[in-house]
C-alpha cells in the first residue's frame, strides 16, 4: 500500500521547489528519467481488464525495469477524512525481458509516458519520496528522444510513502505534515482532485532562490 498526494507547480518555480526540498530533506537529489509503459490486458486474459505499468529507469547506466500494479484506493468515510490517497500498490523489479513477456501473454501497450525530473527520498516520520517530473509524451512509438511535455508550463509533484494496513494512518499524517512545509509553493491533494497553483508561489520561490548570504548580523 502507499499513501500518495499530487500537486502541480509551474515550471518556473521548480528550481525553488528543489531548493526547498533539498533543505527539508537533507539528501541529495536523484535524477529521474523513467519511461513508463502502461499495458492493458487483452480480452483473452480475463473478464476484467487489468493494467500494469512497466517503468524503465533510464537514469542509470544500465536501464532497470520495474513492474508496478496500482490497485484500488481505499474508500469510505474513513478514507475521506484522510487527506492523502491510500491505495494498494505492488512493485517488483524485473529483467529487461519483462516487456516482451507481457506482450507474449497478451498485454497490449495502452500508452507510454516519459517522466523527466528529480526526486528526493528521505525519512521524516515515514519513508517519503517526493518526485517532481515533467510528463512527456512521444509522438512516435517509443521515441524517447523526441518526447515533448504534455503541459510545458506545469510539472507534476508527487509525494508517496509506502504504508501497511496497520500503519497507514501514521504514514498519512507524516505525509500531511510534510506537505505543510511545501505549502508556500504548491497545493497538494489526492490524485483525483484538482488543486490549482498557489498564487503567492512566486514570492516564495523568489525568496528561496535569492542567493542568500546577506550581511552578517
Amino acid at each position, binding site marked *: 500500500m502507499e499513501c500518495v498526494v*499530487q500537486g*502541480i507547480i509551474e515550471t518556473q518555480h521548480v528550481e525553488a521547489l528543489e531548493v526547498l526540498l533539498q*533543505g527539508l530533506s*537533507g539528501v541529495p537529489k536523484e535524477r529521474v528519467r523513467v*519511461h513508463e509503459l*502502461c499495458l492493458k490486458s*487483452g480480452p*483473452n486474459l480475463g473478464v476484467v481488464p487489468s493494467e500494469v505499468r512497466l517503468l*524503465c529507469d*533510464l537514469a542509470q547506466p544500465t*536501464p532497470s525495469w520495474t513492474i508496478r500494479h496500482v490497485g484500488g484506493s481505499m474508500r469510505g468515510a474513513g478514507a475521506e477524512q484522510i487527506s492523502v490517497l491510500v491505495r494498494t500498490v505492488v512493485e517488483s523489479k524485473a529483467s*529487461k*525481458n519483462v*516487456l*516482451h513477456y507481457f*506482450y*507474449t501473454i497478451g498485454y*497490449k*501497450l*495502452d*500508452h*507510454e*509516458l516519459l*517522466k523527466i525530473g528529480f526526486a528526493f527520498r528521505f525519512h521524516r516520520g515515514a519513508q517519503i519520496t517526493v518526485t517532481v517530473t515533467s*510528463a512527456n*509524451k512521444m*509522438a*512516435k*512509438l*517509443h*521515441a*524517447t528522444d523526441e518526447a515533448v511535455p*504534455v*503541459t510545458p*508550463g*506545469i*510539472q*507534476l509533484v508527487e509525494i508517496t510513502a509506502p504504508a501497511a494496513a496497520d500503519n497507514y494512518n501514521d504514514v498519512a499524517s507524516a505525509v500531511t505534515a510534510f506537505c*505543510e*512545509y511545501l*505549502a*508556500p509553493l504548491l497545493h497538494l491533494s489526492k*490524485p*483525483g482532485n*484538482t*488543486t*490549482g*497553483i498557489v*498564487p*503567492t508561489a512566486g*514570492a*516564495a520561490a523568489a*525568496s528561496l532562490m*535569492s542567493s*542568500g*548570504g*546577506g*550581511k*552578517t*548580523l
Partner: protein
Amino acid sequence: MDAAAAAAALGATPAAGAPPPVAAAGEQQAAPRAERLSAGVQQQLNLEGMRARAVGLYKAISRILEDFDVIARTNPGASPKWQDVLGQFSMVSMELFNIVEDIKNVSKVFVVYPRNVNAENATILPVMLSSKLLPEMEVEEATKREHLLSGIANLPVPTQIEKLKARIDMIGSACETAEKVIAECRKSYGLGARQGANLGPTLDKAQAAKIQEQENLLRAAVNYGEGLRVPGDQRQPHSSLPSHLVEVLPFGDGAQNFGDNSGVYPKNTSTFAPNSANTQGNPIQASGGQLLGRPAPSPGATGTPNFENVSTPPMPYANSPRSGANMMNTPSPQQHLTPQQQRQKLMHASQQQQLHAQQQQLHSQQQLRPSAAGMLAQSTIPQLQDLQGQAQQKLQVPGQQQMQYNQALSQQFQNRQMQPGRMQPGMSQSQLNQGNQLRSHLGQFTGAANSAMFTAAQASSNSQMMANMPGTMQSQSLLPQMQYGLTGGHPQRSHPSQMLTDQMFGMGATNTTSMMGMQQQQQQGVYGNMQAGAQNMQQGMVGLQNQTQNPNFPQQRQQNQQ
C-alpha cells in the same frame, strides 16, 4: 523576533551545531584523535545536514533583514509588502522550529561551548552559561509556584502530584475540545487547514482557467493516460528504438507480427537494415525478412495491438538451452572417419564440432549395431558397486575416440549409482560438464598427454583420477576391437559403467576413491539418458556427442573380462 535575539539565536546554533562533539562514552581521549558522535546520536541527528539547515536559516533571516534595510534606506516612508514578509517569516519560523525540535532530541549529549571569548561577550557569557536563574526570573518562578500550590501546599507531596496531574488532564481535554471545535468551524466555513491562504493577490479568471485546464491535462495524462494514446494506425515503428528497448523488443516481435502488419511490413523492411545492426548477434533465424529490431508496433498497422498470432514461439535464442538434441536433428554426412581423422578433427574443432563428429561417429557405430536400440529397453539396475570389484581389467584402448569415450564414460558412470545394464555405450551418458571434460578428453591425444585429463580431473575435483589416466594411453589401441564382445551376459553389451570402471581400473592402480569422487559429480548427468526405450537412443546420442564417444566400450569390457 528582533535582530539581536535573532543574532543571538543564530550565534548559538552554529556553535552548538559544529562543536567538538561529546564522545558518547563521555571519555575525552588525551591523544589527538578525531572525535566522533556515537552511532546512536548520529542516527538521530544528521550533523552535517543540521549545520546546512542552520546556515540556510541564517542566510534566510539575514536576507529578510537586508530587505527591510533596503526598503528603509531607499524609501523611508514605504512599508514592505507584509504579505510576502509574513509568508517568508512563516517559512523561516517553521524551519527554525524543526531545527530546534531535532536538536532537542539529542541535546543531552551536547554542551554549549563558547568558541570565542572577547571583549564583546566576556561580560555576558557567564550569565548565559550559568544555570542559575536571573533574579527577575527567580522572582517570577517563586510567584508562579506559590500560585500553583496555593491550595494544596500543605498536603503531602504525592497528593500534590496527583492534584497537579488532574489539573493537567483537565486542561488537556479542554484544549482538545477547543481544537475540535475550531476545526469543525473551519470546515463549515470552508477555510481549509491553512490560514491566510486567501489573502494576497489572486490570479485573474482567465489565467486561473488556463492553469486549471493545463492541470487537468497533466493529471489525466499521468494518472490515466489521457491524451497519450496513439491511434493504432499511427503506431508505426520508429526508425530507431531507444537503447533500452532495442534488445527487448526484437525478440519474437517479428514472429508475432508476421502476417499482422502487412501494411507495416514493407515500410519496416526499409528500416530493417539499420536495426539489424542492433540485434547484437540475435540468433533468430527466421526466413528472410524477419523484422529484427523492429520496435514494438506489435500493436501494428492493423489498428489494434494484435497478439493472437503468437503461435510460433520465437526462434531459440542464445539463452535457450542448447541441448545436444538440436544437433541430433542434423543428419551427419560423415559416417566413417578413420581414427586418425577423427582424432585430428576432434582436437582441432570447436566443441560443437567435436560433438558433431562424435555424434557422427556414433551414428556409424550405431548403424553397425542396430540391435543396440533394443538394449536400451532393458535396464538393469546398475552395479556400479560391482565395478569396484573388477579391478584388474586392463584397459585396452584401440582408438582415440574410444579412449576418450571410455574415460568420459568412466567418469560419468562411476558417478552413477543406477544404470541400466543394457545401455548402448555412450547412450547412457547425458550431458555432463561436457565442454570441459569433453575437450579435456579430446585433448589428451594431442600429445599433451595427461594435461587434458588433468583438467578433466580438476573439473571433477578429483585429482586422483589423474593417476589412473596415464595407464589409458597405452591401452587405446585395444578399444576398437572391443566392439563386438560384451560381457555381462549380453552379446553386445555390457554394463557401460562396468566397462568404464574396468577401464579405469585398467588404467593403473585401481583407485576406488577416484571413481567415487566422479560418481558424485556426474551421477546426475548420466541419469538423464538411462531411460529405457528406443527413444533413448537418440537421447543417448545426444549425451554421447557431448562426451567422448565410446562405441567400443562394450567390446572393451568383454575383452577385459575375457
